[in-house]
C-alpha cells in the first residue's frame, strides 16, 4: 500500500461488510434453528428429556450426509442441526471474505495467514471426521 491512511480506510470498510455478513449468518441460522425447534417440539414435546447419559457417538447427526438425509425427511432435530451448521459456517465465511479482501489489497503476507487459518478450519471440519 502506498498510503497508510488509505490502507486503514479500506480495512474499516471491509470490517463493516464483515460485521453485516456475520449478523446475517447468525440471524439466518437462528431462523432455521427456530423452525426446526418448532417441528421437533410439536412432535416430541411430551417425550421425557434425558441427557444424563451420552449417546452422541451413535447419532446420525454427526455427519453431513446424516444431517442432509434427516432434513429431507423433515426431521425437526436434523433441521436444527442444519441451522447449527450454518452458524458454524458463519465465521468461516468471514475468514474466506477476509482472504479475498487481503488479496484485493495485494497484502500477500496476510493472504497467506488467512489461508493458514482456513486450512486449520478445513482440517477440523473435513479431516477430523465430518465424512
Amino acid at each position: 500500500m502506498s498510503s497508510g491512511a488509505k490502507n486503514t480506510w479500506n480495512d474499516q470498510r471491509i470490517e463493516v461488510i464483515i460485521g453485516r455478513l456475520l449478523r446475517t449468518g447468525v440471524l439466518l441460522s437462528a431462523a432455521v434453528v427456530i423452525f426446526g425447534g418448532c417441528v421437533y417440539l410439536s412432535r416430541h414435546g411430551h417425550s421425557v428429556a434425558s441427557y444424563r447419559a451420552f449417546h452422541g457417538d451413535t447419532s446420525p447427526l454427526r455427519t453431513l450426509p446424516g444431517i442432509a438425509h434427516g432434513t429431507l425427511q423433515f426431521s425437526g432435530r436434523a433441521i436444527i442441526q442444519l441451522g447449527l451448521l450454518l452458524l458454524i459456517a458463519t465465521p468461516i465465511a468471514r475468514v474466506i471474505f477476509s482472504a479475498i479482501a487481503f488479496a484485493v489489497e495485494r497484502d500477500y503476507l496476510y493472504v497467506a495467514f488467512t489461508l493458514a487459518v482456513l486450512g486449520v478450519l478445513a482440517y477440523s471440519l473435513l479431516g477430523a471426521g465430518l465424512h
Partner: protein
Amino acid sequence: MSVLLFTLLVLLGSFLAGLLGALTGLGGGVVIVPLLALVFHVDMRYAIGASLVSVIATSSGAAAAYVREGFSNMRIGMFLEIATTVGAIVGALIATHVSTSTIAVVFGFVLLYSAYLSVRTQPAPPPNPKQDRVSRFLRLDGSYPTPQGAQAYTVHRIPLGFGFMFGAGTLSGLLGIGSGAVKVLAMDQAMRIPFKVSTTTSNFMIGVTAAASAGVYLARGYIDPGIAMPVVLGALGGSMLGAKVLIHARTKTLRIVFSVVIVALGAEMIFNGFTGRL
C-alpha cells in the same frame, strides 16, 4: 421432565447467562456448562457442545455492533487466529480423550480464575511508544478513534502473545467456552494493545476459534440439537438484549454478583469432578 419443559427452562437459563455475560463482559459461555451439568444433569459432553455453538452465535452477533465503532484490528485478529484455531483443535482432541471428571475440575479452576480477573482492578499497563520490529514487519500497528482524535499504537512481545493465544484456543476447545478473558489478558498485558482494541478484536476471534473445535465436536456427537437449540437461542437473545441495555446498567454491582455466582459454580464443579459425579 418433558422435552417441552426442559427446553423452556434451558432457554430461560441461557437467556439469563447471555444477558449477564454481555452486561459484565465475561461472556455467557462460562456459566452455561455448569448450569447444564449441575442443574439440569446434562452429560458434560453435551453441555460443552451446546455451549461452544452458543459462543459462535453471541460473538458473531456482537461483532456487527463492534466494527461500527472502528476499534478492532483485523490484522492482529487474523494473525493470532492461527494460534487460537490450532489450539482449539488440540483442545477438542484432548477433550475426547480425557474423562469428563477431569474436564469438570479444569473447568472449575478456570471459573475461579475468571472471577478473580473480573473483580481485580488492574491498572492499565503504561503505553510503550517504542517501535517493535516484528509488529512493523507484520503491519500490526494501528490507530483507534478517541475524543482527542486518532490514537496510534504499536504491538509488543508478539511471540509471547502468540503463545498465550495458543493456550486460550486450547482452553476454548477443551471446555467449550470463548476464553475471552484469557485472550484479552494476552493482548493487554503481554502485547500492550489498548483495552478497547483488544476487547473488540478478541470478540472477533472467538467465533473463528470456536468454529475450529466445533468440527471435532460435531463429528464426535457432542452437539445434540435438543440441547443446543434452547442454549443457542437463549444465549443469543440474552446477549443481544444485554448489548442494548449496557449503557444504562450499573455494571459494577452486577460484576460482583456474577463473580460470586461463578465462584460458587467453580467450587461445585471441582467438588463434583473430584468425587466423580460429573
